[in-house]
């Protein structure tokens, strides 16, 4: 489903060229749940951004659902994202001027689906927020906002879900509930999940953990008794 080949990302800084990712080779199969772990600054978010086609690599390539991202321009990547990818972010990224329901409807509408309203309502019900559809993000708690974001991520029934520290902004109890919801839905929709986190316990719930140190994969291990199973 996702494969990277010698994926490298460098940026120019005032102190010269900084290489964030150094030739990453990684393959993720359909239906797999993979955690990318590592310390702050190890390059995990950058890797996620590249795999999801949010940014272009310096060299190497990403194959996302069979498409070479390096050969697509931003416009084409955008279309591809719309078709195969869903996102959950640490900072939720709900649109403040839209209600919870409208936030979930947005990607469905973008696809031109006339039943956006119905589908979004069902999803909100699934994440336990049926009553709060008409609330604006600032009227929701952090946990509720992330539920809305999860509902939105699954709204288009994307094949791949990218989650960037989905529990990073939440307290432990809430975070754990959100993680439950995420994995439950992942199972229901048989989505491929790529999850960036530095939370060891969250990573353990994925089928596999890939550890990054200073832009390089230092270990890739299969987790025993994962929640996926």
């Amino acid at each position: 489903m996702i494969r990277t080949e010698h994926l490298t990302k460098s940026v120019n800084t005032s102190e010269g060229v900084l290489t964030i990712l150094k030739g990453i080779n990684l393959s993720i199969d359909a239906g797999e749940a993979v955690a990318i772990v590592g310390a702050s600054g190890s390059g995990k978010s950058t890797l996620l951004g590249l795999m999801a086609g949010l940014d272009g690599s310096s060299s190497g390539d990403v194959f996302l659902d069979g498409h070479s991202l390096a050969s697509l321009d931003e416009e084409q990547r955008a279309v591809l994202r719309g078709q195969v990818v869903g996102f959950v972010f640490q900072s939720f990224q709900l649109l403040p001027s839209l209600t919870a329901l409208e936030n979930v409807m947005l990607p469905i509408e973008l696809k031109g689906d006339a039943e956006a309203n119905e589908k979004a309502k069902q999803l909100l019900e699934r994440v336990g927020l049926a009553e709060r559809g008409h609330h604006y993000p600032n009227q929701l708690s952090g946990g509720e906002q992330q539920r809305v974001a999860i509902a939105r991520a699954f709204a288009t029934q994307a094949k791949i879900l990218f989650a960037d520290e989905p529990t990073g902004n939440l307290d432990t109890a809430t975070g754990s509930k959100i993680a439950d919801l995420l994995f439950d839905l992942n199972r229901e929709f048989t989505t491929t999940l790529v999850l960036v986190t530095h939370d060891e316990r969250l990573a353990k719930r994925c089928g596999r953990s890939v550890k990054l140190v200073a832009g390089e994969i230092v270990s890739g291990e299969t987790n025993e008794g994962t929640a996926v199973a």
Partner: protein
Amino acid sequence: MVKQMREPRLHSMRASVLSDKKPLSNLLGLAMRLLWRDWTGGELRLLFFALVMAVTSVTGIALFTDRLEKALILESANMLAADRIVSGRGLLPEEVLEEGRVRGLRTAETLSFTSMAFSGSGNMLVAAKAVTDTYPLRGEVIVAEEAFIRGTPIQNGPPVGEVWLESRALSALGVEVGDSVFIGEAELRVGKIIIAEPDRSGGGMVDNAGPRLMLHMDDVEQTNVVQVGSRISYRYLFADDDQQKLNDFESWFRGQEQWLGKYYIRDVRDESEEVSEALNRAESFLLLGSLFAVLLAGIAIALAAKRYSERHYDYVAILKTFGCTSSQIATIYLAIQIVLAAIAIVVGSLLGYLVHQGILLLLESVLLISLPAAGFQPYVIGSLTAFICLLAFALPPLLALRETPPLRVLRKDISQQKISARIPYIFGILGAIFLVYWYSQNFYLTSVLVIVIVGIAGFLSIISYLFLRSSGSVGMKAGSAWKLAMTAARRRRTQNVLQVMVFSVTIMSLLILTLLRTDLIDDWQAQLPEDTPNHFMMNISQNQIEGIEAFFNENGVEGNAFYPLISARVNTVNGVIPQPEEDLESSSERGNLTENAGAEESQYEEIRASIDAQPSAAAGNLDAPDSEAAEEGRRVRGSLSRRQVTWADELPDDNRITAGSWWGEDIKPGYVSIEEDYADWLDLELGDSLEFEVNQQIISAEVSSFRSVRWDNMQPNFFIIFSPGTIDHLGSTFLSTALMEREQKILLNDLIQLFPTIVVIEIDALIEQVQTIIAQVTSAIELISVLVLLCGGLVLLSCVNATLDERFHENAILRTLGAGKKLILSSLLIEFAMIGFVAGLIATMGAEASLYYLQEEIFEQEFNFHYWVWLAGPLLGMLIIAGLGVNSTRQVVSISPLNVLRKVV
């Protein structure tokens, strides 16, 4: 297995990727939903209000000025009783009238002459005017059945067999309505009493020499007074509602070379320079006012759009992660803007209509004229302004949105890297220049504004560069409010420079309008104050002065100084005959008219053959109404013609010494004070010795001072004033002025009976008309100023709001770190006050520079430094910006920092 699967799918996918176009209707639907949600969420309101404000102010002002301008032109056309007048000495060529008729113009004829009118009990010199049936083409004759009442307007002159008389002629002749009077050999019945006639002030000297007697053109023949060689003044009157037809007719007339210098065509602007100047200035002012309104609205739109697009970076990034392409995002935002503009145009046009109705309502009491209906053009102007503002000011930042990298969802600090932040401003500036030019069609005005704004930008860049260099230290310096403010200002340097620029331009616009308005109105009030004398008495002999003074005292008339009047010519300057090459410049054209009363001399000789020599007038621009004399004056300008000169102890009012000094306590004969333009023309210097020929005698005098003279004050003005004792012995007549109210006019009969040799010129009608027009123009100017002030206030507010987000965030962090409310508020106060002070200072400089050009070149006013503004401008800027800023950012400290950091505001 995977690999096998991949290739064919890749192809099919790529094909679908490339062809994936979401249906346009789908996108537009989404755009409308976003629009609606943004609207209900309050995101769009500022932008929408800015657009509505642009359309409202521009449409409202355009509607008002359109109607006012039309009305003012109509109203002033009343002064002529026509739109165009052809006049000249002696019979006019019949073909002119014929040509006018062929071109479909309305026509009328008038004929003015002076004559004695007789009745059973008296006689009197009257200014007779014969008119055709169609007279007047513009305006109304106000008539009554009794003398000295308000009367009612009618739109025709007397029928055949009737004369209409001005009130005071009735008592002098001892007649009433219904009685007969003789004019020449014709006996005519007094039909009505004339209270006012539209072109009373527009006549020549012939029309001002006595009370009016109006008769029908067909009765002229039987009077037998008008014969070849008589002093008569013919006029052809033309009018039409189609300006183009009139202009074509005028060009045709001017193309007839055989008439050059013999017959003249004029419109109201030629007729009265006071009115034409007032009209021109008012038009320029209204234009400038609407220009500033457009400019300010544009700035408001730019600011609101910028803020809107900044708040939409995340929006776009998220849309992109969901698969929206750049072109789709552009389509969505374009659609939002167009719909928004369309709604704003409808709302704004409606509000603009209401605003202009409101103005009219407010003006009802002062606006004595009924306004013609407005055209459709103001709405077009308003709508186009909205679209151009949107294109120039709002679209660039919004289109820049599509460049938002989707990675922004992961990393907040990534923003618009691909598009230079300056491009939107370049668009905005170009758009503004286009609007200014399109509006004004005036290259000069456009250049002035562009130069000043570019100057401000350049100046600010230098300031900000210096400021940058001086920042030697780093950190927030959160120790004291002052240091915090300084470092904050420094950190937001780019943003602050922009903000100062917006503030400066806004405050500058407001300063320019306010100062210009004040100067214009002051100028007009000084020109024709309420108590401007409205009657001139000439040909007064020395021994009559006391009697006239006593007469005025007795009857409560406000008399004025008596100026001796004598005709003189410059013979030599320092012994050399001067040969000025050029014509006397236009600035003193009126002075020339004043003195050119020589052209009228012969007329008066005929009118009053018995009167002593030199009956001519040195009366201010009394002669300005008589443009035939003006035309003649222009022709003789080059030569050293005779001038009406005077002598005086005191410097006349409205004269100012520009070089040298007025004779002091110890007055000596042998000195002369010269008007500055005249002195320039003769190339004079202080101390030059001039030789004059006065009454066949040669007199020498030394130039001791140069003076500036207000030619437009309708008072006696002189090029040449001698020191007392220099020419006193040469014999002179005297000139004086008096203010007589309408009900006092009957006293003129007694005055003329008591002092039969004096000539009274009545200019009360002219002064009244000019004062009315000026009053109307003044209220229009006041209103436009207020409207533009309101626009300016809104711009300032949106500019402060534009930086709210960042301040919220930063101050939340400061407060989390333990900074007190007081520290933050005082630092905000200081920062805003600083910005306001700098903006006020720059605005003052810009305003003074612009005013210099505007007043000298467009408003033809004398520019004077407004010293107080240099203090008031910066202080006002400081107070306003600090007040608005602190008021708007008070929330910064009242909202919990957690909420800010969680971005829920």
